[in-house]
């Protein structure tokens, strides 16, 4: 394998090729720089401010949950016929965001895309925290969350197993598998770096904690051999999950017979949407991170550019999905489907949501065709933000506008979110950033040892 990644595509016009790591770094400097983030560098004031804000929001979440559990989900705006609303929108949104992390760490690993190295750790952490936020919703959206464990297949005196025909049941398995594999993958990847931190820490407490987390890693050849094997295996395990989890989440809708939900295009379209949203979130987080922590050397424009390209591609798939939904509504000649589409796009009371969705998810991201836009971090940041909003709206459109007008006009009604819908959502954002900031503070946000492998001078260790 080449020691340096070639730059074949982007060079039709003459620009400086963006390497995955800026020149001039050595193994020692990489290690120094990354481990210093945790061990040496003074925690910046911005971190405290950010932590304060996000931790406050996380507390809003805690209060909302306490009120929710004691009072009932009637504090939200869900009603009849809109049985699911913000709860499931947020669940799908968070789960989708997680997907980019797994894609980067697992699929790109298997595909030997080295550029992934500097962002994979970060993306995996993002996955894990997003799944944590997502997991709250299916649990808490039930009417009696203290009984939600009935969805697990455990031997019980009632002699009842869960209902395996229900997509919600599949969700339970998909999400819990996803969460465990992601956590394992992330942790295994961290072990060599824990050892580095252990060795470099001056503080006794850090030494002990990192030492325990490093599981006695000494960096011997045998360790490395086993590590590589385990990591590859986990990557292999995680890879199908990228596709399966969101496919199964989409089954929640596709399996039902509601116009607007019942569509065979949902699995691929949802997966594409998930990756789309996930990369938007990766950029949304990386751009400030590399700026505040001076990591431009490690997370280079090349990373941003590649992410932007993936967004562009998946965004187009999502756009195709929208087109196919509309096409099938017409082609099926079903009056319910036809009405649903018409109602969704222009005659219904939520037409604005669909209009915004198209603007945010389809129109605005087209700016990424421009190379200059892809190289402008400000534009990338804004586009990522817009896409994150757009993907949330997509779930709103799918869930709420399909439910509020279904088969019998006599049962139609409107949905109005309450303040607790918003506090729950904002609260999970707070929780996400709280975890993420703790992660940046206490763990190496970029994989140290992997970065060393992509240094220009690093010799390839082995062939595939």
């Amino acid at each position: 394998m080449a020691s340096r990644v070639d730059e074949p595509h982007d060079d039709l016009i003459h620009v400086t090729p963006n390497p995955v790591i800026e020149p001039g770094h050595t193994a020692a400097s990489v290690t120094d720089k990354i481990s210093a983030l945790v061990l040496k560098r003074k925690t910046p004031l911005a971190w405290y401010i950010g932590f304060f804000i996000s931790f406050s929001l996380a507390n809003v979440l805690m209060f909302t949950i306490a009120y929710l559990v004691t009072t009932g989900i009637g504090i939200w705006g869900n009603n009849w016929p809109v049985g699911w609303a913000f709860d499931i929108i947020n669940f799908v949104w968070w789960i989708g965001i997680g997907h980019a992390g797994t894609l980067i760490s697992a699929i790109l690993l298997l595909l030997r895309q080295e550029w992934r190295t500097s962002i994979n750790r970060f993306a995996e952490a993002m996955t894990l925290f997003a799944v944590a936020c997502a997991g709250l919703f299916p649990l808490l959206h039930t009417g009696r969350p203290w009984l939600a464990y009935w969805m697990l297949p455990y031997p019980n005196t009632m002699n009842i197993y869960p209902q395996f025909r229900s997509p919600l049941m599949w969700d339970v398995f998909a999400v819990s598998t996803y969460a465990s594999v992601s956590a394992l993958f992330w942790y295994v990847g961290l072990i060599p770096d824990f050892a580095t931190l252990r060795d470099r820490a001056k503080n006794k407490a850090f030494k002990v904690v990192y030492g325990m987390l490093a599981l006695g890693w000494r960096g011997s050849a045998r360790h490395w051999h086993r590590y590589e094997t385990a990591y590859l295996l986990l990557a292999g395990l995680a890879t199908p999950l990228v596709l399966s989890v969101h496919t199964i989440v989409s089954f929640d809708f596709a399996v039902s017979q509601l116009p607007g939900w019942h569509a065979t295009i949902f699995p691929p379209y949802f997966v594409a949407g998930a990756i789309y949203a996930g990369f938007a979130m990766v950029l949304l987080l990386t751009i400030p991170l590399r700026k505040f922590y001076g990591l431009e050397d490690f997370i280079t424009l090349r990373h941003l550019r590649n992410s932007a390209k993936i967004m562009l591609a998946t965004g187009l798939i999502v756009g195709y999905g929208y087109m196919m939904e509309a096409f099938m509504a017409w082609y099926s000649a079903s009056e319910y489907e036809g009405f649903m589409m018409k109602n969704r796009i222009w005659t219904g009371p939520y037409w604005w949501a669909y209009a915004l969705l198209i603007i945010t998810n389809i129109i605005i991201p087209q700016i990424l065709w421009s190379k200059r836009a892809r190289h402008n971090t400000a534009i990338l940041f804004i586009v990522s933000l817009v896409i994150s909003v757009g993907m949330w709206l997509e779930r709103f459109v799918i869930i709420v506008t399909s439910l509020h007008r279904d088969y019998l006009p006599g049962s139609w009604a409107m949905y109005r979110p309450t303040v607790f819908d918003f506090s729950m959502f904002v609260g999970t954002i707070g929780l996400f950033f709280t975890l993420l900031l703790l992660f940046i503070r206490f763990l190496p946000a970029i994989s140290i040892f992997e970065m060393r492998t992509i240094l220009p001078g690093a010799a390839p260790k082995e062939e595939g």
Partner: protein
Amino acid sequence: MHIKETFPELYNIRRPVKREEIRARLEEKTGKEYWRSLEELADSGQFEDFLHSEFPRQAGEWDDEVGRRTFLKLMGASLALAGLTSCSYQPPETVVPFVRQPAELVPGKPLFFATAMPFPGGAAGLLVRSNEGRPTHAEGNPDHPTSGTPERPAGQRVAATDSFSIASILSLYDPDRSETIKNRGEIRPYTAFLGEIRTRLDEMRGRQGAGLRFLTETVTSPTTAAQLKAILAAFPGAKWHQYEPAGTNSASLGAQLAFGQPVNTVYRFDRADRVLSLDSDFLSCGAANLRHARDFAAKRRVGEGKTDMNRLYVVETTPTNTGAFADHRFSIKPSQMELFARALAAALGAPGVSTDGAQYQNVAHAQHLLAIAKDLQSARGRSLVVAGEHQTPAVHALAHAMNQALGNVGQTVVYTDPIEAQPVDQVSSLRELVGDIEAGRVEMLVIVGGNPVYNAPVDLAFTKERLDKIRTPDGKDGLRIHLSLYDDETSELCHWHIPETHFLESWGDTRAHDGTVSIIQPLIAPLYKGRSVNEFLAAFTDKPEQSGYDIVRDYWRTQRLESLVASQPAVVAQATVPEGAAGGNNTHGGNTHGEGAAGANAAATPSPAPGGSPSPTPSATPNAATTRTAAAPANFDEAWRRVVHDGVIPGTAAAARSVSVSGNWAANLSPAQPASGGGFEIIFRPDPTIYDGRFANNGWLQELPKPLTKLTWDNAAYMSLNTARRMFGLNENDYTFKGREYNAPLVDLRYRGQTVRAPVLIVPGQPDDVVTVTLGYGRTRAGHVGTSTEDKPLGFNAYRLRTSDAMWQGTGLEVVPTGDEYLLAVTQLHFNMEGREIVQSNTLREYVEGGGDASHNVEGGASVATHEGAAEVVGKETHKLPGPNDTLYPNYEYTGYKWGMAVDIASCVGCQACVIACQSENNIPIVGKEQVARSRHMHWLRVDTYFKGLAENPEGAHFMPIPCMHCEVAPCEPVCPVHATVHSAEGTNDMVYNRCVGTRYCSNNCPYKVRRFNFLLYQDFETPSLKMMRNPDVTVRSRGVMEKCTYCIQRISYARIESEKEGRRVRDGEIVTACQSACPTEAIIFGDLNDQNSRVARMQHDRRNYSLLAELNTRPRTTYLSAMRNPNEEIHGA
């Protein structure tokens, strides 16, 4: 108090033992020592104490003053608790259960008692279910002429209930009911009241009771009337006034006008082929209408060989259920109604009406007038003109004249003695009373029931200033006394407030719409210290403490009850007109036709038990039959027992009168003129759910969606779409038709110097420039549920616009928009089918010709074809729908029962009684206005309404009751992750509340949206009285679980168990669901689809049968029979 606090000594025995003590003790010991505990070792005094008095210790406390006191405290508390549980709610007097004898009372099995709910215009006869002495549910009494059809053969008895009667159960247990006797705000014993009355009456006796005034509502009770007459005889100077804000005053004035005497009109819809309603809402909910609706629907129903239908023309001023149901509906301004009636009367050649047609050229709908007249004339003697209760006396008189001209008198219209004990013009009666008060001629006003302070017309308002003029001749304060269920607006202004007993806890009697008397028997001893009307009136007699039971019995003893009963040996043979006299009015097909006249024979044949009872037992059925055919009662007690048991006193129907319209009755009528000038016209109507305001504190009725508007918890000013567009520039996208939330614009209604602020509701079918307001809202002292306050308004008080000269309609209303908005809680926002085939509708001609509905005949439904194996309908060209075998999976097989339901849309009049019946039977909570506005109402059964035609002036509406469809391939079942909703072996789709975790996926996946979720804790688990109200056979759901219609599975199980005990199958008609039992038109039929002869199976085989959303292949087992219309082609073509 915790026991630790009561007996601290018990907890202090084991004083901690100090190690030093033990060591010291051990050092003293020598040799082997055994010790039981460290305490003994330490030789502590406490251990000694413990050892010696472990049990006797408590006994020893008798000597100890303090210990004895605590002991007595505990004993006293437990005695009190024991006393509480032993409270008996069965009244002390003998009550007679309908089906079973008290000796047979089996805990867990309900008993049914016949009683009746007094109501203006005639009472509904009820069978009230009693679970362990607690009345829990009301159903119709099949032997009662209003709620049942006693003339029918025993096997076909059906009964119905109206929503007011069913909801009365909630009123009974209403925690806001008045509990105590109050004198000027202070709680007083009844004896204090009796004392004061006695003193006052003695003073007044010398003046012949000149200042004594009684104000009652309409009195139909013979006993009460006899009491009042006796009191008036004792005090010749006293006067009895009657005022009912929403009674039938116009009708009796109209009869007076036409015949010169008050008569009661009994309509025989079972004989009418052509019906013209002049603003009469005879199909809406209300006791007397039960019979009207049932007879009318039976005449209308087609199927099983019957292919004729009646035809209904409705000319109405505000949309009603009847108008929605009409074959031809004409909307008209109230001021034009009399003109229209005159023109039509002229066209029909009615007596006393000028035939000079010229002045009627400008009548609205004149172009159709002749066609209507022709059609009515073509059915002489079989037609019927009905005038609305709220129409002017002139319109009533015109209707009488038209009926006479059409030869309907004695056929479809029967005149009888009035059912009111003393018919008076109530408005004049009230005016006279107010005049007397103003003139200082009143010194004691006794208000027996009613709430005149709230509901009197403004010009006769019972203000405090006016009431303070009630004084004794020597200038002392007069006395105002109010008897009522609630401590309400009137009670507040009265010196004495006496709580009234609910009709379910008191003895009494009342008349039905045809005059038949029912004995009201209590099912429960009074919950509070109330007095019944009769007991209260006894205070003004020589025997003030007489019990209601004795009063009613004594009255009927004087009426020689035994001879009344003896003259009518069997209830079945009571038919005043033999069945079949008017040919072809048996609606149940040929096989049973003709048995009706057999009378006693029919009763003796084995038959399903009365339709209203879910607990019929074969042993009870012969008993009941025996009772009916028993010989004449030997004495009063036997007769009494029988009438209380049956719920009706035979032979008490009002005597028929033969009257005719005098030729010159109209001579002194002022010529009808259309209203001159512009401006709005105003219409007052009793509210469809809370009536005149008396049910304002009844949460069930408050939350019951009002027919046609689906409004809950409020009243509104109804306006037409055109008017609203003109006033507010609204288009239909803003309101109603596109289903936004209903933020209604607020307007000021200015009328005759009064102003009321009201929200506007657009009602399709309302005439332009006419505003309808309903009465009963804006109460200031109704209770927790019904009181309207500044921060929590509950409707507006329309009585404040009402004057005594225009009780029901008037001109000169001014409507001023305020720019504010008001949130209305409306349960259906979209009344348009969007072109979908939801309600399928045929005309009679299409049906007869057979082409009309074949394409909709869903043989593939779960109901019919799977059983017969005739499932393969593929290839039948008209059939585009999936069949039962279009699946990879094998179909379920039902070897036992296979329950199903059929709903005949052609019969549903949209009265919503089924909704309340379901609520009462299944312990369904109410959620309150805010939650309804959030679309979280809990009704398991809803009645969807879809208008037909243009929103500006719809041709009518279709009502579609939607319970759970119990789909064969239920979309809710596979999506539940925890098996909380499952298919049963009898085909029902069961909901396991305990297993539900509340994901709501089932609701999302239900195409019919029949599932309801407890978003919050809606059920009231705290209020003790409401606990007594619940049906013990139905789980009371808590928050977080999904619930839905179960087909009243508790009733199914009951019948199944009973049948298994006797080794037979459940008979057809043995199981009656709550909605079915309430339905006045037999639109809902439930039964076993495996029994091909069951009524439901026959209905599902009807050509009109179709499955809702059949294309989804859910194969619902609730199916619908298409709506039917019978238009007059002469008009239809126009």
